[in-house]
């Protein structure tokens, strides 16, 4: 089909008839501004083709121009199957339809409606509107370009017919899809679609949950049952132990053993008590015996001591007399030694005085030896002071400072430099005189021979009257001469002001001053060598004069004091001093010996005094003892008291022997401590055993009662029965879970097999569309590979390694792919001889400049097989699409 003409009236903003002119093969572009009525034309075209002229739908009423009572009239001219047709329909008002073929009306009204459909090959539907078939598939109304082609039944049929013609008949796809839906739903009752995990609340999850819960409950019941079993076992053990513990025969035997042990222990303890009472009596008897014996010994000792003290007193008194004599002799020797010591001390004092006098004289001699040195020092000091005064006076008279010389030398260097500069700037003239010219050559009027001249000022050379050469140095030479003169004047003024005739005089004066200054340094050095400065030299001279005078006075006084006319000879003085010192040394040794004698005598006296005191003390002690002993043991009663004491000892010995015999008898009758301890341990052990048995019986009774109670309670709970119920219940749920699991795996296997077959079939179905879409995609998206999902909608696009889902693409890309898919479908249909115009109403609104260029390429490719009609308001952007320009023409006469 190819559209040739279109006119519309009474629709939208077209109150008058408007015709679209310029239709032809390939791309047809209608560029008009917004609200120019492009979408009205699109709707009118569809209405004309697919609505019965008698239709009164809301869409049709919406299409009519608002406020007008005009019919909606659409006239469409087209070419199809090599023939030209024209259909004109008037809707809502003055309803009519006319269908012409080659300009000849072949049907009107309802017949025209149906004849048109027959020509187009679309089957009439059961309702008011016919199925739009491939037209609806390929016509994109405003705002719908983003949507992928949604196939109506007939569109699917048309497309499927084309596909079928290419790949053959495919059956069962719909049934498979329905069955897959059922299977997914049924599987979904058991497991989650995404992870295949048991679905919460589903029968499989419930069975698994119940199994898990029951498993826990079984574990708990088994634990309780095991505990009860253990308690039953323990109860049996306890009962057996109680029976053994409470065995009457064993108890009787234990009691008999205890009674025998207790009786033996009682007897033993009685014997021990008797012995305990008797043993102190034995000890008392022994103590009495020992006391009697002690008194006898004391009496005998006292008698012996009286005799001894009497002998001691006699000896002591003799010793005291002898000691008194020895003390008197020692005292006499001591007095003699003291007298000799005192005499020796007086001689030593005389020698000390003589030595002191000699020392004083030696000091005077020494002081007199220093005077010549001081005299020489004073003379040197006076000479240096004088010379310094003379030099200072000469320096004042001839001042010639170095600074003046420096200034002079600076001026002389400047003058020399200036002269050199003038010399450098002078014109060098070299005159060679030939023999004929001798004397004829005048220089500034004066004849000259061969010469070399540096002319710093104008110079006239007369060449023998033949020529006059005027030499003028370069400008500036005169200034340099004036500078030189100024410098020389400055030097002369400097010398004049300093009082010197010329530079040599100044240099001589400076030389003299420097010599004086060197001499002054020498004088100052001499003063410094004497330890004084120029300012203190005079004071030092005065000080030396005073010292010499004082020295002389002291010497005179000393000589007078010593009665000497002159200072003695030092050698005689030394000989005298040596003699005195020898004598003093001998005196000291003698005195030391006398001191030793004194000490020895003193020691002898102290020793004698101590011996005498000791003997005196012994004497007094013996006298006191003797008095006491005699009071207790008078010589008259000594014999009677001795007899009494010996009798008391005999009586005590007899009493002690009797007590010892009685105790020995009791000891033999009493068990020893070890035996006693043994009996006590046995009784204690047997009593403890009885107590332990009684306690154990009590414990066993309590434990048995406790276990019986617990077993009774556990048994009452019906644990065994409960556990069996739980196990049966768990087995039931486990079987159910297993069955569900098998059911799920069965359904999943069935689903997977059907899905795999379905996908294979669908891939075959999509192959023709993909083949046609491929070049279009290549026009816009380089190396893009489409993947179709349900129907013919693109599900994914692969670009390189990346796969992108259609719904996640950008709006612009989605729109472009949707349009390209339609172009591919159009190509497929066109290839099968079912070419239908592709109409795009305000599409590609989101395409950027580059992408829209590529889309234009794709539209250009499509236009090679079928008519492409584009309605757009983007005049400039679609300028590059090319193709035919459609125009809207208003029929002024309508």
């Amino acid at each position: 089909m190819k559209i040739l003409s279109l006119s519309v009236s009474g629709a939208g903003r077209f109150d008058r008839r408007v015709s679209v002119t310029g239709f032809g093969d390939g791309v047809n572009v209608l560029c008009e501004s917004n609200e120019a009525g492009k979408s009205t034309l699109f709707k009118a075209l569809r209405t004309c083709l697919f609505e019965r002229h008698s239709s009164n739908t809301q869409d049709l009423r919406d299409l009519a121009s608002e406020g007008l009572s005009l019919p909606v009239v659409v006239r469409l001219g087209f070419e199809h199957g090599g023939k030209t047709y024209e259909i004109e329909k008037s809707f809502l008002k003055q309803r009519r339809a006319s269908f012409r073929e080659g300009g000849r009306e072949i049907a009107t009204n309802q017949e025209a409606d149906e004849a048109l459909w027959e020509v187009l090959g679309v089957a009439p539907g059961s309702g008011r509107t016919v199925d739009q078939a491939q037209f609806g598939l390929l016509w994109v109304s405003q705002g719908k370009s983003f949507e992928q082609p949604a196939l109506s039944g007939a569109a699917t049929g048309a497309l499927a017919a084309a596909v079928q013609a290419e790949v053959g008949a495919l059956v069962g796809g719909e049934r498979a899809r329905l069955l897959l839906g059922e299977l997914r739903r049924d599987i979904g009752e058991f497991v989650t679609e995404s992870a295949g995990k048991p679905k919460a609340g589903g029968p499989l999850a419930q069975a698994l949950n119940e199994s898990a819960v029951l498993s826990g409950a079984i574990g708990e019941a088994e634990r309780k049952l095991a505990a009860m079993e253990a308690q039953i076992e323990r109860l049996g053990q306890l009962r057996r132990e109680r029976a053994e513990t409470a065995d009457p025969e064993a108890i009787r035997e234990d009691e008999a053993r205890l009674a025998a042990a207790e009786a033996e222990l009682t007897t033993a303890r009685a014997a021990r008590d008797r012995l305990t009472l008797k043993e102190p009596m034995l000890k008392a008897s022994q103590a009495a015996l020992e006391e009697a014996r002690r008194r006898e010994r004391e009496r005998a000792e006292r008698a012996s001591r009286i005799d001894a003290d009497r002998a001691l007193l006699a000896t002591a008194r003799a010793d005291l007399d002898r000691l008194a004599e020895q003390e008197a002799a020692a005292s006499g020797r001591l007095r003699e030694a003291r007298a000799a010591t005192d005499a020796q001390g007086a001689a030593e004092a005389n020698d000390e005085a003589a030595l002191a006098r000699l020392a004083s004289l030696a000091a005077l001699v020494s002081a007199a030896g220093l005077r010549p040195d001081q005299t020489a020092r004073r003379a040197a000091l006076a000479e240096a002071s004088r010379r310094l005064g003379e030099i200072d006076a000469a320096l004042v008279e001839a001042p010639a400072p170095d600074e003046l010389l420096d200034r002079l030398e600076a001026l002389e260097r400047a003058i020399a430099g200036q002269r050199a500069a003038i010399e450098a700037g002078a014109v060098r003239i070299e005159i060679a005189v030939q023999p004929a010219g001798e004397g004829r050559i005048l220089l500034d009027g004066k004849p000259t021979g061969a010469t070399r001249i540096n002319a710093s000022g104008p110079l006239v050379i007369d060449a023998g009257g033949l020529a006059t050469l005027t030499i003028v140095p370069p400008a500036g030479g005169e200034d340099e001469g004036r500078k030189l003169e100024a410098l020389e004047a400055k030097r002369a003024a400097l010398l004049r002001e300093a009082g010197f005739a010329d530079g040599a005089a100044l240099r001589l004066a400076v030389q003299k001053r420097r010599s004086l200054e060197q001499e002054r340094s020498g004088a100052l050095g001499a003063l410094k060598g004497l330890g004084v400065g120029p300012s203190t030299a005079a004071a030092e001279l005065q000080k030396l004069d005073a010292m010499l005078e004082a020295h002389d006075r002291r010497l005179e006084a000393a000589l007078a004091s010593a009665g000497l006319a002159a200072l003695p000879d030092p050698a005689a003085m030394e000989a005298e001093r040596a003699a005195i010192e020898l004598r003093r040394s001998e005196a000291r040794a003698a005195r030391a010996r006398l001191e030793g004698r004194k000490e020895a005598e003193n020691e002898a006296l102290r020793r004698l005094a101590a011996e005498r005191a000791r003997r005196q003390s012994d004497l007094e002690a013996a006298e006191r003892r003797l008095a006491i002993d005699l009071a207790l043991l008078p010589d008259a009663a000594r014999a009677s008291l001795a007899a009494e004491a010996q009798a008391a000892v005999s009586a005590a010995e007899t009493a002690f022997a009797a007590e010892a015999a009685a105790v020995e008898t009791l000891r033999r009758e009493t068990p020893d401590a070890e035996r006693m301890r043994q009996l006590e341990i046995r009784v204690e052990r047997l009593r403890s055993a009885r107590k332990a048995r009684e306690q154990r019986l009590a414990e066993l009774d309590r434990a048995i009662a406790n276990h019986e109670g617990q077993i009774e309670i556990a048994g009452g709970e019906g644990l065994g029965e409960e556990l069996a119920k739980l196990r049966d219940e768990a087995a039931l749920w486990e079987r159910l879970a297993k069955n569900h699991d098998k059911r799920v795996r069965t359904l999943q296997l069935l689903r997977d097999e059907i899905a795999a077959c379905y996908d294979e079939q669908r891939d075959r179905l999509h192959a023709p569309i993909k083949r046609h879409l491929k070049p279009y995609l290549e026009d816009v998206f380089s190396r893009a590979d489409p993947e179709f999902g349900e129907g013919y909608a693109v599900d994914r696009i692969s670009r390189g390694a990346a796969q992108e889902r259609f719904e996640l693409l950008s709006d612009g890309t989605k729109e472009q792919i949707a349009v390209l898919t339609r172009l591919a479908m159009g190509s497929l249909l066109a290839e099968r001889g079912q070419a239908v115009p592709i109409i795009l109403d305000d599409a590609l609104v989101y395409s950027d400049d580059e992408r829209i260029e590529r889309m234009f390429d794709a539209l250009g490719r499509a236009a090679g097989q079928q008519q492409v009609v584009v309605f757009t308001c983007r005049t400039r952007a679609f300028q590059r699409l090319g193709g035919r320009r459609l125009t809207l023409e208003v029929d002024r006469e309508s």
Partner: protein
Amino acid sequence: MRFIHTADWQIGKVFRRFQDKEPVLQQARLDVIGAIAALAAAEGATDILIAGDLYEHEAPSQRTLSEPLQRMRQHVALRWHVLPGNHDPHRPQGLWDRARSQGLPANVVLHLEPKPHRVGDAVILPAPLQRASETRDLTGWMDRAETEPGLIRIGLAHGSIQGFGGGEGEAKNLIDPRRPELARLDYLALGDWHRTLAIGERVHYSGTPEPDRFGSQDEGSVLLVDIPGPGAPPRVDRRRVGRYRWTTEAHRLDSPEQIDDLDRLLRQAPDLANHVMRLRLEGALSLAALALLDERLAQLEAAMLWLEIDREALEVRPAPEDLERIDFDGVLRQASDRLLARSRDAGLDAAERSLAADALLELYRRAAGRNGGAA
């Protein structure tokens, strides 16, 4: 001496695998007490010897403990002699102490110790179990048990006869088969073996009065025993008292006709509503036949108290028409072909092949007849 010999009542047994039928089966175990009492009354027997395992569990609930005792109490003219078995041994503070502490019915005699018990012109020599598993023969004491001359000696024990059954009995409590001769017993009433069985002229297992498992006795029964006098051979008569028949059937199915035959065969059984059946099927059926089998089995299941089907050995063998009923061509047919190939793939293990067969059957159930006129 005429008495009833019974055992293995297993009161309190849990039947959760039978789901909503559990109370019915539990109730039947209690109701059989009435049936035994009625039989005893009818036959003039006043003593009922229960040779162990009156209870299923050693620690039953209070209600489970009381219910059979209270049922026995109702029959005042009868004496119920109860022996602890391996399921309900007499242990300290165990269920028998619990029962005694709550007050036993006067007509219930507990034989908790190996002591002779005089009953009319007979004496009962019991061998009670005091733990689930004894290593010695508890009936040994009967050899030495002195009884008055002229009395009928009846042994009452629970365990396995040595050398018999290969340990098929529940307990390992072995009993010497010569015990009647060794202990001069006129009759040895045994429990533990859930089938009525005569070991010898004087040694009998009564079986359970109400079956509780597959592979044991089909119907519940007791033994009516009549001993004319000491040394006389006992007359032992088996009497059915149980309500439900526990049967196990195995059939081969290779064609739809055999499904019909099986249906007819099973339905011929009398009292079908009281059947508890385990049905093992083997063979190979087409998908259509399997669908038919499902329908028949569903109906049979409703007709019986319980029908448990084991079809592990039943192969799926799709016929060409089965696959055509799924589709002649297209996606589903391709999928069914793949599943069929997978179910026959020797490279896969049996579980994977079975899963593929199940998936094919599932596809058949969902798709067959829904392809718009195929088949």
